């Protein structure tokens, strides 16, 4: 709601500017104050509007994947998964089972990273700097696991239409166990530091509360909605990937205040760690490798051989293609070559593979879904992350719209801080977990 500052009220206008130290990016909150109490406020967003939807109309379905990473940039793999699943629904395909388990593992690691960052930032803004440092330490171990497999710590572009880019690193288990162990230790420490902390409780209990009806009316989803007591988790209500085979709880709050939002996120961290452990244990094994001469052939040698006969046996690929060799390709990507790239061995040693690869990237060819539209949503770090894609049969989306969860959550901020003190704005805003890339797109 807009406000016109009224001089007769003798109030002061304060601008919590677009660049503020509460490290949530760029949001401008203009408050009208009487002393320290907020009479009225206006939230201005759009300082990180990077034209995602318009850009996607000018990119092919394959090449717009890196843009999805940068939406909710603390949990980038969930955005990838949402886009890939929406496209798979439109195309009518399904990823292989091992790829689905790997996707769940990566999504949950991303969710852990999201909640760690959110609680750490909230803690730091309330003055608990130790919480920030501890949680960032745990986040580094999580990012190490992601980096082993995908090659990037953050914006990985790993989950693709039809599957994932590469299989898990052979030594991922040790890194994963270390990450889970360290995260559990950090969680125990943070529970001890913040749960009963009088200062933290004073700043969060009873503040920023919303009733369930109001939360639904504002379109809230995710941890913020669950903190008011409404049980809605896309993973349970509309299960996707292999979440229906996994055992996890959905923590609920009762008051919908800042403290409940913090507590719901902490308990969800615990549940996500459970899912990670179950997924790592239940991962379908890789397809058995055919016996034969297993000494890898050099690429130039393989190309030379391919001129006369088919190349059998492994080819020594470059290190950045680790995990996407031909013998694991069936486990990680769907076999339908209209929508996925062929393995590199086929691209460079067979004619069909070369043509397939070439047509995939050619202007006007590539992934061309049937005409139609699709809406698919996944459970992002902040709530229901939905992709609405309209396809007109060409290789570029006609319209790609993101249902950003924190757009709806932040729209309630004016209602939450009205009548409170200025100092209450910070923990309230921190508990909402606003991510600029997702809010402004």
């Amino acid at each position, binding site marked *: 709601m807009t406000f016109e500052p009224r001089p007769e009220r003798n109030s002061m206008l304060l601008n919590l500017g677009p660049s503020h130290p509460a490290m949530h990016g760029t949001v401008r909150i203009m408050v009208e104050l009487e002393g320290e109490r907020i009479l009225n406020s206006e939230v201005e967003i759009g300082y990180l509007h990077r034209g995602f*939807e318009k850009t996607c109309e000018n990119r092919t379905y394959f090449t717009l994947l890196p843009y999805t990473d940068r939406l909710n940039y603390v949990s980038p793999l969930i955005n990838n998964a949402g886009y890939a699943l929406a496209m798979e629904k439109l195309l009518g395909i399904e990823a292989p089972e091992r790829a689905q388990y790997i996707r769940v593992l990566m999504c949950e690691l991303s969710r852990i990273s999201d909640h760690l960052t959110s609680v750490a930032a909230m803690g730091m803004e309330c003055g608990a700097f130790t919480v920030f440092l501890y949680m960032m330490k745990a986040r580094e171990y999580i990012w190490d696991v992601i980096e082993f497999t995908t090659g990037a710590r953050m914006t990985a572009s790993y989950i693709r239409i039809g599957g994932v880019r590469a299989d898990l690193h052979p030594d991922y288990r040790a890194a994963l166990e270390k990450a889970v162990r360290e995260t559990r230790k950090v969680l125990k420490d943070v529970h001890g530091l913040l749960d009963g902390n009088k200062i933290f409780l004073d700043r969060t209990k009873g503040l920023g509360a919303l009733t369930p009806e109001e939360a639904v009316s504002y379109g809230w*989803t995710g941890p913020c909605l669950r903190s008011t007591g409404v049980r809605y988790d896309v993973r349970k209500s509309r299960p996707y990937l292999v979440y229906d085979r996994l055992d996890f709880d959905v923590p609920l709050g009762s008051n919908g205040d800042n403290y409940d939002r913090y507590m719901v996120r902490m308990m969800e961290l615990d549940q996500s760690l459970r899912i990670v452990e179950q997924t790592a244990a239940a991962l379908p094994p890789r397809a058995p490798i055919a016996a034969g001469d297993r000494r890898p052939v050099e690429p130039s040698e393989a190309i030379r051989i391919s001129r006369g006969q088919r190349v059998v046996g492994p080819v020594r690929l470059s290190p950045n293609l680790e995990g996407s060799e031909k013998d694991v390709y069936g486990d990680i990507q769907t076999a339908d070559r209209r929508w996925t790239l062929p393995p590199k061995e086929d691209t460079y040693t067979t004619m069909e593979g070369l043509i397939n690869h070439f047509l995939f990237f050619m202007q006007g060819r590539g992934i061309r879904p049937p005409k139609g539209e699709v809406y698919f949503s996944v459970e992002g770090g902040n709530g229901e992350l*939905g992709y609405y894609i309209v396809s007109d049969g060409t290789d570029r989306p006609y319209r790609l719209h993101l*249902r950003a969860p924190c757009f709806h959550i932040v729209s309630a901020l004016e209602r939450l801080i009205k009548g409170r003190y200025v100092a209450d704005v910070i923990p309230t805003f921190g508990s909402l977990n606003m991510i600029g890339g997702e809010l402004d797109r």
Partner: protein
Amino acid sequence: MEPERVIGDLEKRFPGEIVEASRDGVDLVLVIRLEALLRIMGSLKEPPYSYKLLLDLTCVDFRRDAGSFEMVYHLYSLDAGRRVRVKVRLPADAPLMDSLASLWRNANWLEREVYDMFGVVFKGHPDLKRILMYDGFEGFPLRKDYPLRRRQPKADKGNTT
């Protein structure tokens, strides 16, 4: 309520207003007429359908092919776990329609975004102004005739405060 029953019920209550109805898995897709928007959305929100959560509200620019904008609404029912997609066609020369801000509170910001990006004006909206682009930006970026790379630098003419 089962999707078929919802369709039958709505067609009885709003004869002639539902242009098209189809299913998308367990979800429903309705194309309705512009004049009936507020009434149909109001009754979808109430029991027995209870689509209480407005998930999303967006627009697609179909002016080149169909001569109209298409507004797309996604609603969700928390009890039944089902969605409904409601589509409304808007003539290109008069992009004016009713605001849903009286029914759902997040419609306020969502409609501001559609106004900012497409130029659709919402009657009855409490405060329709730009939300993502800055004041003084000319044009509506997500329309198909707005080029992606047009630069409109925000010049403050020397005064930056």
